[in-house]
């Protein structure tokens, strides 16, 4: 059924607030299957619900809309900092034909990349790895899991981004418990532990970003020079009803460049990487724009964090054209101040806290932009290095 809520605040809300509300609605109510419309004073969602539950959905939408729009109060609908028009139009319909021929859906937000898709992914990552190494980065490999008891609580991540997090659990290592689960799996086709089984939290989450484990690895360090690290990571973000191949996957590939140092050095390195990333847009003839942006904070916690981020312009986002007015945030350039170095006690030789910055390239989103611009045929993807 379609559930509609009228809200006058939507008529005057700026574009970032409407886009943010659409994202926030994915975490409003488990009955919501998709967001149909946000704007013109109206919110419409498709939901699987009876009339009684529909009222609960409406109440949730009203509450989320109120908080979400309020969180954008101090986020201006500002002009892009950089724009580029491609030599030809992007066509979003190319994504569907590429998905049909080269991707296999394995579950919500989970896709196998076959043949040319896997090659394109490797080629794009190789390009950004080369970019980072040319800027002086040292290559790292990091785990795809992050302990829940270290950095996360100290920086408030689970409060501000808990909606995206996937936690790990495992069976308690007790023979009788394990034998009961084995028996249920064999005889009753149990596919996951239930209340009848003994489980415990694994003490980690599936990594939603690459950089956290870099700060954890550097905890307690005294760094004499700016440190620049690059790593490709498998990252995991639950997206509610908004999963989409290449654009919003539960598991996706992100290469990051992580910088730790004095504020001036950080800004210089971030700018160098930003300029080099814009050069990649030229190489691939991709259209897009660079904007001041904010993180996808959980809606009830978002007000202060979003205002502070927008106020300081600490997050810049490169949005690449997909055609038909659609775009995808394919790279972000972030300054964190002492947000991570304080809790992780990372200091310079004089004992003062250093600062951090990171750049993230969403590899599948770059794939989407290349395919939308060039089409699904691999022969058209010129400009990329071999993987």
């Amino acid at each position, binding site marked *: 059924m379609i559930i509609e809520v009228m809200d006058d605040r939507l008529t005057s809300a700026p574009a970032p607030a409407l886009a943010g509300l659409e994202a926030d609605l994915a975490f409003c109510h488990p009955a919501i299957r998709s967001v149909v419309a946000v704007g013109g004073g109206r919110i419409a969602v498709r939901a699987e619900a009876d009339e009684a539950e529909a009222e609960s959905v409406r109440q949730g939408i009203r509450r989320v809309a109120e908080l979400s729009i309020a969180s954008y109060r*101090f*986020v*201006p609908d500002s002009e892009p900092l950089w724009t580029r028009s491609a030599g030809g139009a992007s066509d979003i319909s190319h994504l569907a034909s590429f998905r049909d021929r080269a991707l296999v859906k394995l579950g919500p937000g989970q896709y196998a990349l076959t043949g040319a898709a896997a090659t394109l992914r490797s080629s794009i990552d190789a390009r950004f790895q080369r970019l980072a190494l040319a800027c002086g980065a040292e290559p790292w490999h990091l785990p795809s899991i992050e302990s829940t008891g270290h950095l996360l609580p100290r920086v*408030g991540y689970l409060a501000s981004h808990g909606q995206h997090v996937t936690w790990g659990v495992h069976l308690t290592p007790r023979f009788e418990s394990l034998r009961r689960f084995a028996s249920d799996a064999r005889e009753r086709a149990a596919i996951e532990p239930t209340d009848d089984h003994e489980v415990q939290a694994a003490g980690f989450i599936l990594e939603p970003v690459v950089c956290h484990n870099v700060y954890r690895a550097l905890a307690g360090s005294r760094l004499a020079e700016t440190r620049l690290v690059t790593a490709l990571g498998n990252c995991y973000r639950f997206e509610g009803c908004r999963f989409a191949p290449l654009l919003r996957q539960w598991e996706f590939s992100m290469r990051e460049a992580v910088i730790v140092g004095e504020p001036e050095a950080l800004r210089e390195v971030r700018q160098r990487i930003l300029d080099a990333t814009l050069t990649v847009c030229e190489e691939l003839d991709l259209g897009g724009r660079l904007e001041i942006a904010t993180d996808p904070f959980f809606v009830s*916690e978002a*007000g*202060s*964090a979003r*205002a*502070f*981020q*927008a*106020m300081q312009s600490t997050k810049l986002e490169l949005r690449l054209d997909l055609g038909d007015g659609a775009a995808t945030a394919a790279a972000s350039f972030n300054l964190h*101040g*002492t947000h991570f170095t*304080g809790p992780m006690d990372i200091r310079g030789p004089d004992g003062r806290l250093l600062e951090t910055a990171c750049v993230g390239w969403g590899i599948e989103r770059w794939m989407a932009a290349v395919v939308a611009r060039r089409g699904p045929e691999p022969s058209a993807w010129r400009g990329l290095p071999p993987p």
Partner: protein
Amino acid sequence: MNIRDEIRRLITQLSATSAPFDDGEDLFTRGVLRSMNLMELVDQLEDRFHIQVGHRDFVAGRLSSVNAIAALVGVSP
């Protein structure tokens, strides 16, 4: 209690630290307030002093210190 004292009291209530701070110090850089305190600070300033905080006040740093906030609410330096 004068307005400057009232501003200091609001900030002390919001702060997670008991460290002293000067009127000219940047409250966020100094760690007296965290980014998560920002909207609560805005709400309290708007309620208490009947002002409307705008985006330009953020960008111009008019919430960054006791002195800046005092100027925002109309106290002469």
